[in-house]
Each structure stands twice: as structure tokens, then as C-alpha cells.
């Protein structure tokens, strides 16, 4: 956190936060039972991270 109201996040932190928050929202909106929600949140989070890291590696050869 920098001076005043502001955040300094790394790429990984930003991706993690984004994935966690969106997974929670999708889980609560998409499922009704608490157990189903937790399963959905974990699954969505896993897929977010997998796709995020996958795309990151797919772009690696073009990054230099």
C-alpha cells in the first residue's frame, strides 16, 4: 500500500484477488445450497488460475 488510498499489487496478486472475488460471486449467484456453493467456488477458482497461468505460459515465447 502506497501513500494515501492506493494499492500496489503484483500481477500474481491481482490475478489471485480477481479470481477469488469472481469465484465467490459466481458461487453465490449460481448455486443455492452451501455445499454446492463451496464446491463451485473452489472449482471456478481452480479453473481461473489454471487458465490464467496457462495463458501466461502460452504468451511466454512472444514476450522477448
Amino acid at each position, binding site marked *: 500500500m502506497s501513500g*494515501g*488510498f*492506493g*494499492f*500496489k*499489487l503484483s*500481477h500474481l496478486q*491481482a490475478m489471485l*484477488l*480477481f479470481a477469488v*472475488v*469472481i469465484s*465467490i*460471486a459466481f458461487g*453465490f*449467484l449460481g448455486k443455492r445450497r452451501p455445499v454446492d456453493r463451496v464446491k463451485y467456488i473452489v472449482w471456478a477458482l481452480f479453473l481461473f488460475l489454471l487458465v490464467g497461468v496457462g495463458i501466461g505460459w502460452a504468451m511466454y515465447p512472444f514476450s522477448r
Partner: protein
Amino acid sequence: MEANKMVDETTAVAPQRDAKREAMAFAIAVAGWLVPGLGHALMKMWGRAVACFLTVGVLVLLGAGMRGNLFSSSGNDAFDSLGFVADMGTGTFYLAARSLEKEGPDVSHADGDYGTRFLATAGVLNLLAALHAFEAARGRKA
């Protein structure tokens, strides 16, 4: 004769009830758009209401904290206009984000660019939640 009269009354009342329900669903959707989670709270869906409020709130806080770009109505091109629509999806949180970003946006770094996406995502997510509340209020399975 009596039976026919009863059928006529029933068929006349049903569309009125439907129209009232549609109007109520629309009001709930607008409430959900203006204040994230309010639409669900009005239907006593407390878990979803809290989840919507917190997730949209956290995304707006992070987006504004990372000095993301908040689009205005005076956009130069279609992307600016689309960005404005997405940002406006957060309802009153748009104004909160504006007041939080005292130093204005800074998209010269990756942080600011991510912040722009966080703010737009918050808006689209809130629009999705408002649509969900609308469908639930209409009686669709939600």
C-alpha cells in the same frame, strides 16, 4: 353460468397480477443495480445480497485503489462508451469510486490498467446480479 362468471374473473385477475409482479421485479432489478445486493436483500436472499455487496465493493475498492480509469459519458470512441456502460453498472458505487480516486486515474503502469478492468468487472458483475434478482423476482428458478 356461475362457473363461466368465475372463470372470467379469474382470467381477468391473472394478467393484473402478472403485470404487478413484472413491475415489482423491475423495481427490484433497479434497486439491485443502484445498490449492489439490495435487489436480493428485498427478496430476503441474505447470503446472495451480502455476497453481491461485498464482491462488487471489493472490486470497486481495488480498482479505485489501483487508480484504474473510470470512464465518463463524454467518451471519444465506442470503447470509451462501452467502458462507461460497464462502470455505470456499479450504480452508486460509481460515485464512490470517483470520490475515492482523488488523484485521478493512472494507466501508465500495469496497476492502473488492472484497476480499469477491476472497475469494469465490478459493473458487469453487478448487472449480472441485478438480472439474477429480476429473474428470481419473476418467479424463475434462481
